[in-house]
């Protein structure tokens, strides 16, 4: 049996969603591609075990978050996706562009873990427990990181959180 049986189908099915997560974690197309491809390579390397575990998508997400943290520790990447935002601005309304730029810049100043918490909790709609599992930390840590991240976002881009604060 092919060691990688089912891997291609998995990536084709879940690739778009994982690409979106990668982009939110990095804010840059090139970094997002590097991040996702490294996570997929790691997943493919351990594919029989990952597939047996029953949650390959969760495995890729965790690999991406861990890889992003590893990059941050090594300070290889420090820039955010301002270039991508300006390219997208051509076709969009001014309000939408402003919102995305505001969010992208606000996210860019957050520590990597806080950014990951926001992406997993509010984009992936994970519970605190699921987020903790992906990040490899306690639920209490997720709560405190989310609290701190929202507080910083609130200060940087208050319009983005006008309704979120009540949640």
């Amino acid at each position: 049996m092919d060691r990688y049986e089912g891997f291609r189908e998995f990536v084709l099915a879940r690739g778009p969603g994982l690409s979106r997560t990668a982009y939110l974690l990095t804010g840059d197309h090139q970094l997002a591609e590097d991040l996702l491809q490294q996570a997929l390579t790691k997943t493919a390397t351990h594919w029989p075990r990952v597939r047996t575990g029953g949650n390959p998508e969760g495995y890729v997400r965790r690999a991406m978050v861990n890889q992003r943290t590893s990059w941050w520790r090594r300070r290889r990447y420090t820039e955010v996706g301002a270039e991508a935002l300006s390219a997208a601005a051509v076709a969009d309304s001014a309000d939408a562009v402003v919102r995305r730029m505001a969010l992208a810049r606000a996210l860019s100043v957050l520590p990597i873990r806080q950014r990951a918490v926001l992406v997993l909790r509010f984009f992936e709609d994970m519970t605190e427990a699921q987020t903790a599992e992906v990040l490899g930390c306690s639920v209490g840590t997720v709560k405190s990181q989310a609290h701190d991240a929202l507080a910083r976002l609130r200060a940087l881009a208050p319009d983005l959180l006008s309704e979120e604060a009540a949640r």
Partner: protein
Amino acid sequence: MRLRESLHELADEARSYADPDAAVTRARRRRARSVAVPLSVAAVVLGGLVAAGLPWLPAEPPVQVDPRYPARVSPRDGAVPLPADRAVGAASYVYGRCASTCQPVLVLPDGTQYAIPASPDHGSIAVALSPDGRRLGWANRNEFRLRDLYGTQENVYTGKSIWTGARWSPNGRWLVLMWSGQGEYTIIDTTNGRTTWLATPPWSWFDVSDTGEWLLFPIPYEAGYDRLDAPTGEATHHKLAPSLGQAGEYPLPPLLTPCSCTAMFPLFPSGPVDPYIASGPVVALVDVDLADGHVITRFDLPQDDGTWRPVAVLPDEGVVLAHFRPDVTEVVQLHSITGELTVVSRLPAGFEVVLRGAGFPAGR
């Protein structure tokens, strides 16, 4: 504008970054490197040892990687409970440290561990894991619960008295429950959940065939066994070779093989005591033709510092055995034709294990 909506709006800018073929290509290279480098290092080290004329080599054979088993398991306290609301997939085995009570823990092929909500009032691990690892049964007070690990379905079985034992057919289709040792049995067809009630004179040990149509009961002190026809409840006596082993060796209750045409009898050199009560080192397994009672093959087990417990004969794995050594507990497969022994998983010494295909009581 909520944060959630803003994030989705921002995510709409993402392109497609996923390339499965590139990932597989890199994974192949990575695997090639990870295999090649240790092999070259090992060759250098081994060459050095041989050149140095050292009289020893590593005593412990390497663990054979089998995707059905984690190579090594580190027992942990406080394993999370087996989730009732989602599938976990096929399991590898169950372990537990039995002091006053046993808290059984389920182990998956990737090493994940889950606590089984079994009743703690049994002195041993009162669980039964199917030959394919898909179904897990355990005692909960007077009930027996059977969970399909591929999903969330859990069936509950009760008898006229308390549950005392279980046996799987080698193919895993049939599970027979024994109640209170009074000759009451429930035969479960796991493919559709149907049950058949059977009342017979009591036996302690039994096996169930792959068709679910008959049960095998070994007879202590006699070279024979009783075959109980489940639909009619009639038993017939069958003779075996006068001696299944060498002088001084006694057969223990056998393991039916997947064809249900032969049975593997463990032998241990002890007596004259009741081999169904006494415990002793299993020294060999003999495969016996049930049609005419002659011994087909004998597999001698290495006599080291440990003890062997043959558990089941499975279609894809051969004979599976637990090997209890002073420093480690091993899960071992014995090839049914060549007799080759392969260690597929290890965990620390001092733990009881229930392997795939094992019923309850587990000891032989």
